[in-house]
């Protein structure tokens, strides 16, 4: 009997823990960063949209239909004006979503706008789009609008979010947070294992080869790094070690998770600067931001506030000292 009670109590505790929505700040940051990245992708090629994605562009409508693997909004774009309507409608949907309006309803639409956009036209993407296409499916079941939201600014701050008052929604939300974490772990682990299968990342020549392609690299900076064989022979294996160990650090404990996520973000900042893969890096950083807990964000905010307070107090004190010395 006591065993049954113990199991029931354990289950109760488990369920109680799962009805508290997690990572609301992280997922809101994810929304903002992904929204900005997707918007910039749409707007960056605005002048070239007809050429890259249009019906009389590089991939004509008929060719597109031949290769279309799944439902896409551009399937409806048989004429130019429908194409324009979908393109501009997508920009509007992503803008509203980024601002935090009706995120629960707009997330599936953003997913369709994004995957339809990346499927149209020739293959232009780099892996970041793939990660986003997967995470946006998960995100349809999460609350992405709890923070940094224009819609939230006009709402009553005391009013709880639906995810906080409906337990099943919180359970869905927390499952999404877990799915984000596992998916990111899989990406790193698989990428690390794939690198370890060759020799180039182990002897350091992989970075040299990547930077030899002028699509990547930062002229003047990466050329110099590429000449330093000792440095490359450390960076290559270090990349593999970081990628393979990511899931272990992520699962170990709270501190190791924050540590590995900070390393991952620095890694992707490095990729943005040294490889020039800006959207790829932004999407990955957004995914990593979603994995940091609300408590960690609050702690970081407190730390920053305290540091700034101390700095401003020191500044006022030194200003006081200077003025009183000048007065004498």
């Amino acid at each position, binding site marked *: 009997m006591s065993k049954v009670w113990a199991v029931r109590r354990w*289950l109760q505790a*488990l369920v109680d823990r799962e009805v508290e929505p997690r990572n609301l700040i992280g997922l809101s940051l994810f929304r903002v960063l992904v929204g900005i990245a997707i918007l910039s992708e749409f707007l960056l090629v605005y002048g070239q949209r007809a050429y890259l994605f249009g019906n009389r562009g590089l991939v004509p409508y008929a060719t597109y239909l031949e290769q279309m693997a799944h439902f896409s909004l551009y399937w409806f774009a048989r004429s130019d004006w429908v194409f324009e309507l979908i393109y501009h409608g997508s920009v509007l949907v992503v803008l509203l979503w980024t601002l935090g309006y009706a995120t629960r309803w707009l997330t599936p639409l953003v997913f369709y706008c994004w995957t339809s956009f990346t499927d149209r036209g020739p293959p232009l993407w780099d892996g970041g789009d793939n990660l986003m296409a997967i995470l946006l499916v998960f995100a349809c079941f999460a609350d992405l609008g709890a923070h940094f939201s224009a819609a939230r600014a006009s709402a009553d701050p005391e009013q709880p979010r639906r995810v906080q008052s409906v337990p099943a929604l919180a359970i869905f939300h927390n*499952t999404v947070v877990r799915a984000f974490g596992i998916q990111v772990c899989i990406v790193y682990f698989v990428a690390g294992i794939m690198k370890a299968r060759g020799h180039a990342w182990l002897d350091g*020549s992989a970075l040299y080869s990547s930077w030899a392609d002028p699509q990547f690299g930062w002229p003047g900076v990466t050329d110099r790094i590429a000449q330093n064989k000792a440095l490359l022979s450390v960076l290559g294996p270090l990349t593999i070690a970081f990628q393979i160990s990511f899931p272990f650090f992520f699962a170990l404990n709270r501190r190791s998770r924050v540590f590995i996520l900070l390393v991952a973000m620095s890694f992707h900042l490095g990729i943005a600067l040294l490889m020039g893969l800006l959207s790829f890096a932004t999407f990955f950083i957004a995914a990593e931001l979603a994995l940091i807990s609300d408590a960690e964000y609050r702690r970081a905010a407190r730390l920053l506030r305290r540091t700034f307070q101390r700095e401003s107090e020191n500044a006022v004190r030194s200003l006081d000292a200077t003025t009183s010395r000048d007065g004498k």
Partner: protein
Amino acid sequence: MVTQRILKQLRLPALVVCWSWLVFHFLCTTVYLAPTGTVQAGLYELACRYMRPRFSQRWALFAPDPDGKTRHFQVRCRIERPDGGLQDTPFYDVTERFYASPWHTRLGPDGRLLRAYLSTLMPLDRDDKTLDVLRYRAKADPALRETLERRLERVGQWRSEYARRLAARIGSAECRRQFPEAKIAAVTAALDLVRPQPYFASDPAPPDPQRVDFGWQPYAADLRGL
């Protein structure tokens, strides 16, 4: 009150459903991404039914060995002279302007144009998990070899045709950009793949650039946008 009670009752079933999905989804993901072997090959189709198309993924990011080749997209135009004769221009490199200012390219639309131009390399891309699984099975089952060959041929043909059509349209757009007033009859495009200098001094010198030639094709008069 009643609603609250119902919602409370739904917590455990919701949790069971969510966690079951989580386990199922990531099991399928693992099978989908695992190296090709007996277990993976056996379950691959099953996993694909769920994973494709929405959860398709591939994480060979610069792995295992980046080739480091520089890709130059070359275009040649056949222009109709006023006297009715034809004149072929020499090949000119349309990617050079993108490579000349890397940050301008990355921070603007040129980055996407460059990728579109280089995507004509698709016929050379041999990375295809479905074919890997088929290859693995064909090792044990000779009857499958014929199926594999047919499939490889079909995929190769489709890719080549796609790349050829894309190259023709890119060539047409670039010829129009270069000669806006001219009457263009045909275009040809080619991709030059230039290997980098070897990393180790003892490694052999890189071979001559490899050229993928898409051949002469009619000018795409319907093209718009560049």
